[in-house]
C-alpha cells in the first residue's frame, strides 16, 4: 500500500499496474501514511505536504 499526491489529487493504491504508471510520472510524489491521512482529512494541504516532501527529498539527496 502506497500513497501519492499530485496537484489536487491524492492516490492510495496497492495495484502493481497503477504503481507502474505512477512510477513513470515524475509529477507524483510518494507521501507517508501520516501525510496521506492529514491530506485526506484536510489537516494539511496537498501543497504543504508536497513542499515538505520535496524538502525532505532534497535533504536526502544532499546528505
Amino acid at each position, binding site marked *: 500500500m502506497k500513497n501519492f499526491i499530485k496537484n*489536487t*489529487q491524492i*492516490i492510495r493504491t496497492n495495484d502493481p*499496474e*497503477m504503481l507502474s504508471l505512477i512510477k513513470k510520472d515524475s509529477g507524483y510524489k510518494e507521501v507517508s501514511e501520516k501525510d496521506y491521512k492529514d491530506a485526506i482529512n484536510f489537516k494539511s494541504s496537498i501543497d504543504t505536504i508536497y513542499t515538505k516532501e520535496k524538502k525532505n527529498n532534497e535533504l536526502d539527496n544532499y546528505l
Partner: protein
Amino acid sequence: MDQDKVYYPEIIETYALPETVVEEETSSTNYVGKTNLVPTTQVDKKFPPRNFARETISETLNTRTKKILGEFTFGQVGAIAIGVYENGVSGDIRITPNGITARDINGNATFSIDGNTGDAVFKGTVTAGSVISGSIISGSVISGEIYLGGANNGDGLLVVRDALDNDIVILDKDGITINNGKIELNTSGSTTIIDSLGLISGSNFPFAQITSSDTGDNNDTTNYADVTDMTVDVTVARTQQILVMARFAGGEIEGTLTTVPYAQAVFRLVAGSTQLGNTVSISSIIHDSGTSVSYALGEASINQIVTLPAGTTTIKLQFKSSISGQTVRVVPSRCELIYFKMGS
C-alpha cells in the same frame, strides 16, 4: 559316366582299455589223459589310482567356462546361497522356491521377493522408467511425473486419507473435493486460505483510491468536462471485472447566479468512451452570504461493476451544468474515485 564307388571295410583296431587287467592264459600241460590245471597268479597287483574330474563339460553345464548352458530346476527344497553372511563382514543373497532375500553386513533385510505372494520389499530406492500398478501403498512416492488414468486405464483417481481412513482430498476427473480441509496458498509474505467458510487472504485485491477536492469549471449543459484529477488509467492483464465507485460528499457548488435560485451539476463515469450506468445530479441549496452566493452541495455516488478488456482503460469522472447559462464549479469536501479489481 559316373564311376562306381569303392567301399572299403572299416577296420577296427584293438586297443587295450586303460587299467585293464590282463588275464593270463591258463596253461595246461600233460593234458593227455590227465589235465593239470595251474591257477593264474597275480603278484602285488595294485588297484588303479582314483581319478578326480576337475572339470565338467556337457551340453548343459561347462565348469571350465563357468557357464550354465541349459535349464535347471530346483528340487522341492532346492536353494542357492550367494555369499556367506557374517555379521559386520559380509551379507548374502538367498534364492529359494519361496522367493529371494538379501541381507546386508549388519543382518538387515535389504530386499525380499515373496515367491508365493509376489510381494516385494526394497529397503533402498527403486528407480524405474515407468510403473504400471493396480494400487500403490507407500510411505512416500518420489517421482518426476505421475499420471492417473488415461486411455485403457479409465478415469484417474487420487485419494488422500487421514489416519482414521477418512477420505480428505479426492482428486478425480470432476475436480478436487476436500472434506473438512482447506486449500492454502502461500507466497512470500502472504497467505490465502479457501475453505468451506469462504476465502481469507492476506493479499488484498488490487485497488486504487483517488481523492480530489475541486472539479474545475464548466458552464456547458451539453458537453461534459473532465473533473480535475479524476482520471485514472486501469490496466488488467486479462478480461476482468472491476468495481468502480465515485462519491461526492459535502462542499458546495459555486456558480454565477442566474434566473433560477438553485444550481445543479450532473456527473457521470466513463470507461474509455463508454458511460458507465446512469448520470447523477447534485442539486444545491441557496446560501447567500450577503456578498456572494453559493449553493451548498448534497452528496451522491455512482457505483458500477464493469468488465474491462485486457490492456489499459482510462476511467474518468466528468460533469456538466444542468442549467443553461450557469457556470458550475463543484468544490466538494471530498471527491473520490475508487476502483477495485475483483481478482488479480
